[in-house]
């Protein structure tokens, strides 16, 4: 029977890790090649600027290399690197703003239920009205309206495609907390973007 690519890839990866642990630099570089784009984007998304994202990218892979002997293959290599990168990124934010994480601004009713304030329809394909750079700026500024702990959950789950359990493991949160944060983050981002993308807005 033909082997499904996913399995082949996993086996290949565990071979690469073995080689890298044995000191084969080319094998480690191949692992870096696979995930560098994602880790850079993660850094951009959490820290919100290029310099920090570059630092996060370098630190994450340098530390991964350094700690490779400690890597146990009971989790994916990618998830492991993501955890290192997220820690680096959050540390950068803490250094940059000495303030503690502010609670997320959402409207709630007396039962603690999240209230939605904006019900407007969006224009079709709103992204097509903006140049790439402009769109990046819009998405980033919406994300910056969220506390780092919330936008990190959003990125890991919805952009990087980690499972709820993997996200919980990476961030040291309970599964319930991941779900609650994801829900609020999604609604809040939508609300921020609605200001720009809704029907009848100026652009």
């Amino acid at each position, binding site marked *: 029977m033909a082997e499904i690519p996913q399995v082949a890839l996993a086996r290949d990866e565990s071979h690469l890790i073995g080689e890298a642990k044995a000191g084969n*630099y080319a094998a480690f570089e191949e692992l870096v090649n696979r995930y560098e784009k994602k880790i850079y984007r993660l850094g951009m*998304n959490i820290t919100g600027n*290029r310099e920090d994202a570059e630092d996060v990218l370098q630190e994450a892979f340098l530390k991964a290399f350094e700690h490779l002997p400690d890597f146990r293959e009971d989790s994916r290599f990618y998830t492991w690197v993501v955890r290192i990168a997220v820690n680096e990124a959050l540390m950068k934010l803490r250094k940059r703003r000495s303030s503690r994480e502010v609670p997320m601004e959402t409207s709630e009713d007396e039962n603690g239920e999240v209230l939605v304030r904006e019900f407007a329809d969006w224009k079709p394909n709103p992204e097509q009205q903006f140049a*790439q750079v402009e769109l*990046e700026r819009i998405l980033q500024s919406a994300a910056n309206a969220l506390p780092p702990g919330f936008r990190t959950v959003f990125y890991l789950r919805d*952009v990087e495609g980690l499972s709820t359990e993997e996200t919980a493991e990476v961030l040291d949160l309970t599964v319930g907390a991941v779900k609650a944060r994801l*829900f609020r983050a999604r*609604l809040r981002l*939508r609300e921020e973007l609605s200001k720009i993308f809704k029907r009848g807005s100026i652009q």
Partner: protein
Amino acid sequence: MKCNQAIKELSGYLDGELDPELKQTLEAHLTYCNHCHAVFDSTKKTIELYCDGKLFSLPDDVRTRLHEALKRKLHGRR
């Protein structure tokens, strides 16, 4: 189903975690409630926008510096 109940199931619905009965009730609500339909639709769109692979792509010079740093690290150890 009321709107606030529908909104509460937003995440579960997007993640395909609702049991069939609840999913059906919710979808019925979404067919006649323009408000909730707009919220669900634009939330899906929000996620799609952030998932766009072209965004925040790794610049060549950043990649080059990463690989140089890795090489330096490796040679420093030997």
